[in-house]
């Protein structure tokens, strides 16, 4: 492992790229720590956003205006304002109000605020994709489920949602790839994600180019991973012969 790293660092040194800071235990630890934090952010926000998206989508297609109208308003406001501004707003305003109210008992860390803001923001996008999926399920298919005496929740769980997920999957994967990149805003409130760790290193070592290459490669690899998982899911959930 270490030998391979040495060889790699040696190889790119020929192109004028100096990656020797990777042998510095402190830099390396903070970079690995940052990468793990980004992974944790991605995982938490992905799950959080999907949960938010599902809840919002159900509210959006609800025949009851008390559910549908607030959901629509939330989705529109959230989708049309910058995530970074939302994060500042949450962390600088909400967090401050919360601290004033409960003192040091405030349970929300900066990490938690990032997860919450991204979950809500991306949840609004998921909600639109899922809403389209839910509405694309033919009424006749639902009527068939009804005539088999499914209750409304059973019909949703066993028929409407599985079909809606399949229709919405490409859009959801797209949103999740975007979510991975969006976690970089955590650096704005000093959460030690991979971007923040990189900034700390390049301000000290003056190696912006090397760090940029590393950072872009890292996010690129994560995005490709999400894409691969999406493809795998699409293949798994494929409905043979459907729509032909």
């Amino acid at each position, binding site marked *: 492992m270490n030998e391979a790293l040495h060889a790699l660092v040696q190889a790119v040194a020929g192109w004028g790229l100096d990656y020797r800071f990777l042998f510095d235990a402190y830099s390396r630890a903070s970079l690995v720590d940052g990468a793990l934090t980004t992974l944790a952010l991605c995982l938490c926000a992905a799950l959080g956003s999907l949960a938010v998206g599902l809840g919002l989508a159900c509210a959006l297609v609800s025949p009851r205006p008390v559910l549908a109208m607030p959901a629509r308003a939330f989705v529109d406001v959230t989708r049309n304002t910058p995530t970074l501004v939302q994060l500042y707003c949450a962390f600088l305003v909400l967090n401050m109000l919360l601290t004033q109210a409960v003192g040091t008992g405030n349970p929300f860390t900066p990490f938690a605020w990032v997860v919450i803001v991204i979950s809500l923001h991306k949840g609004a996008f998921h909600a639109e994709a899922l809403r389209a999926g839910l509405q694309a399920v*033919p009424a*006749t*298919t639902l*009527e*068939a*489920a*009804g*005539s*088999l*005496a*499914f*209750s*409304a929740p*059973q019909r949703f769980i*066993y*028929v409407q949602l*599985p*079909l809606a997920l*399949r229709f919405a999957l490409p859009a959801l994967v797209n949103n999740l790839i975007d979510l991975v990149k969006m976690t970089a805003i955590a650096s704005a409130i000093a959460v030690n994600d991979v971007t923040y760790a990189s900034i700390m290193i390049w301000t000290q070592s003056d190696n912006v180019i090397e760090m940029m290459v590393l950072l872009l490669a890292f996010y690129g690899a994560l995005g490709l991973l999400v894409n691969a998982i999406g493809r795998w899911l699409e293949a798994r*959930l494929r*409905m*043979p*012969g*459907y*729509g*032909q």
Partner: protein
Amino acid sequence: MPSTDTPLVRLRDVHLAFGATPVLKGIDLTVGKGQAVSIIGPSGSGKSTILRCLTGLLKPQRGELTVAGTAVHQLHGEAAHRPLRQRVGFVFQQYNLFPHLSVLDNLTVAPRKVLGLPAREAREQALALLAKVRMQHKAAAFPGELSGGQQQRVAIARALAMRPELILFDEVTSALDPEMVGEVLNVIGELTEEGMTCVLVTHEMRFAEGISDQVYFTEHGVIVEHGSAEQLFNHPGEARTQAFLQHALGQPGRRRIPDTYVLRNLSPYHLSV
């Protein structure tokens, strides 16, 4: 001959309008246990609407509907209709199978989730029903991989899997290519011979004539005439019925039942009536 002493379905003066448009204008209809009753009539005459009222998918504004001992017109809300829908199967023109489930799962999901059958029992029942409709070799296939006739036979098996007392068929062969009509009608014919109570909306006049205990002719939301198949098809009393039958039977394209079907299944049954 099945008796009409204990009707499984009874409609009394059923009226239904969509907005200001009256669609059913006083329907009376009775189906005895074990009977096969066909509803024929021109498109738009309200046949599907009658079937949809039977399971409460549509609510008549006036009249009484009793189905399998349940006063359907007195039910309110989705949940109240569930016990009724467990006992009444519905087969649709467009099959409406669940495209994300295999054929086997299409047949097991409702018995398991609604009736609470154990997985193994639901599976065994499903395989037996698939054998009955001659689809056991496609248990692992998905609906999208099947022909229309095959999908419709699976849809019939799916309805049977709920162990219904009554099955409603709404133009179940109208979307099929002519060569597949026979395989579906064969399955329905066998069901009626076994004593399953069936209400069929159909344009297959020969088939209706062959299997029905009673035939109702509807037009513009009223029952113009009803009677035994022999009576209605051979000695219709109303001019409108005569005109419709002449039109329906006169078109060569409508006679889509293969002769083999008529010979193999219908003639003996017909004689025994």
